[in-house]
C-alpha cells in the first residue's frame, strides 16, 4: 500500500516537472531585464570588471553574507557534534 502511494506521488511529481520543463522559455533566450541592468552598470557602479563578483558582493551582497553564514553554521554544527564529551555527560 505504502509502495503504491509512493509510486503515485513520484510519478505525479515527475510528470509535473516534465510538463514544466516543456513550458519553460526556449533554452538560450531568457528574459533579462534585471540582468541587463547589472551587465550595463556594474563597471560604473561597483568599479568591477567581473560582473558575477559584482552581483555576489554588491547587488546581492546579503545573499553572500547569508551563504558565508550557512558555511559558518555548518562548520560550527559539525564541530559541536564532534566535540569530546566529558565522562559525566556520557552516562545519561
Amino acid at each position: 500500500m505504502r509502495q503504491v502511494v509512493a509510486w503515485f506521488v513520484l510519478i505525479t511529481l515527475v510528470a509535473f516537472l516534465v510538463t514544466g520543463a516543456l513550458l519553460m522559455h526556449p533554452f538560450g533566450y531568457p528574459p533579462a531585464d534585471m540582468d541587463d541592468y547589472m551587465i550595463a552598470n556594474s563597471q560604473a557602479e561597483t568599479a568591477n570588471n567581473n560582473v558575477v563578483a559584482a552581483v555576489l558582493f554588491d547587488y546581492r551582497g546579503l545573499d553572500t553574507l547569508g551563504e558565508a553564514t550557512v558555511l559558518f553554521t555548518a562548520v560550527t554544527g559539525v564541530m559541536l557534534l564532534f566535540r569530546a564529551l566529558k565522562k559525566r555527560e556520557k552516562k545519561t
Partner: protein
Amino acid sequence: MEFLTLHSPILIVAVPLLAAFITPLISRIGNRFRDTVNVSLLSFVTFLIAILAVDIYANGTRVYTFGATVPEMAIPENYMVPVRIMFQVDGISIFMGLTTTVVTLAALIYSLNFLKGQTGQDRFYSLLMLLYVGMIGLEFTGDMFNLFVFLEILSIAGAGLASYRTNLADAVEGGFKYIVISAVSALLVLFAIGILYGQYNLLSIAALANTMQFNMLDMIALAMLAIAFFMKLAGVPLHMWAPDTYAVAPAGITPMIYTSSAASMYALYRVTFTLYGGQFDTMAIGWIVIILGVLSMFIGVMMAIHQTDIKRLMAYHAISQSGYMLLGVGVGLAVLTDPAAMANYGRDAMNGGIFHIINNALYKGMLFLTAEAIFFRIGTRDLNRMGGLGHNMKWTTIFFIIGALAISGIPPFNGFASKLLIYESVFRFNPLLSVIAMFVSLVTLASFTKVFYSAFTGPEMPAYKEVREVPRSMLIGMGIMAACIIFFSIFPGLVVDTIVAPATEALIDQAGYINGVMGAVP
C-alpha cells in the same frame, strides 16, 4: 536614535550575526563574559525591534535596500525593476519578529544555567544566535532567494542544535530526520524560485507579485512552495519528523525550533497571500488549507493522548495547535475575494489564527521549558516514572499550570482569547468546523490534566526526595514567557488591536506591499 531607527531592520539581523561570529573568540576570555555579551546583545536587539515596531505601527511598511544610496530606493533611477536585495518589514513581519525575539530571549536566559558544566557551550550559543538570525531574516526579507538562504540558515542551525546530546542515539536520529526534511523542502523552494526567475527575471517578492501572470508554470511553483513550507511547519500528513526532533532537542531549543515552524507558516502565508494574492481559486485553496488544518488538529491531539514521553506528548499537541492557525487563516483565504464575508467574519478568523501564533509560541514554549526543567532534575522524560514533583518544584508547577490552562483554552487565559475568535468566526463560515475545534480543545484539556496528575500531584516519591527547584536563570526564562502570557490574558483586546490587526491588514493588503517597492513606477 535617528540612526538606530533608520538602520534598525538590518541591525536586528546583523547584531546577532556579529554575536555568533565573535562568540568563539570571546569565549576564550571566559564563560561569564561570553554569557554577559550574548545576553546584552540580544537585549539590545529586543530594544531595536521595539523601536522598529513603534515606527512601523506609526508610519507603515519599511523598505531597506542593501547597497543603494537611499534605503527606500529599491529601484535604480530610470529603471523599472528592483535590482538589489531589500528587506521589507510590514505588520505581519514585525509581528513574527516580536514573537521570535521574546521566545529567543527566554530560551537564551533559560539555557545559561541549564548548560553549566557541559561541553561545547560556545558553539551552542553561536548556533542559537544563528537560529535566531535565520528566523528573523526569513520574516523580514522581501526577496525570494534571500528567503531561501535564511531558510537554510535556520534549518542547519536547528539540526545541529537538535542533535546536541550526541551520546544519545535518538538525538542524532532526530537531528538527521530534521535536516533531511529541511534539505528537501529547501531545494523544492529553490526549484520554485528558479521557475519564477526563469519566467520573469525577477527575485523581489513585490515585483514578482506585480508581474505574475498565473499560468501553468506559476501554479507548479505555487504547489512546490506550498508543499515545501507545509513540510517545514509539520502539518499532517507531513508531520512525522516533528515529535522525534522536538523530543530530543535540548532545553531552550525546542521552543525555538517550534517558532521556526511558525516562521515557515509565515512564509506559507506570505506566498499565498502576497505573492499569489487572490488571483487563483481562493475558495478551493482555502478549503484545502482548512481541511489540512482540521486534520492536523484532530490527528495531533489523538496521537498525543497515549504518549508517555512528556516531550513527545507536547510535540503532538504542538502539531494539533498548528491546525488552529491553519484553520483560522484558511477561512480568511477562502473568503478573500468576497468583501461582505470578509468584513463579516473573514477578518476575525484571520485575527484569531494569527493571534494564536504568538499565544502558542509563548505557552507551548513555556510548557516545553517546564518539561525540560523536570528532565533537568530527575533525568527522565517518562511520565510513568514521575510523581509528586509539585512538593519540591513549586515554581515549575505554577508555570506548568498556567501553560496547561492556556493551551486548553480555559478563560481567562490568552489561549481562550484567540480560540474564541476562531470559534465565533468559523461558526459563521461552517458550524461543523467550529464544533470539531471545540472538541479538540476539550481533548487537549483532558490530556494535560493527565500529565499534571501523573507528574506533579500525589505523594512525594522516595526517589525524588532530594529534588530541588531548578536554578534561577531557568526560572527567569520561564518567567519571561509567563509574564507575557499573563499580560496577553489580561489585555487581549489591546493586543489584538495594536499588533494583530495590522498583521492581518498587511496580509490582505497585497497592493500596499507591492507599492512599497514599485510605488514610483507607473
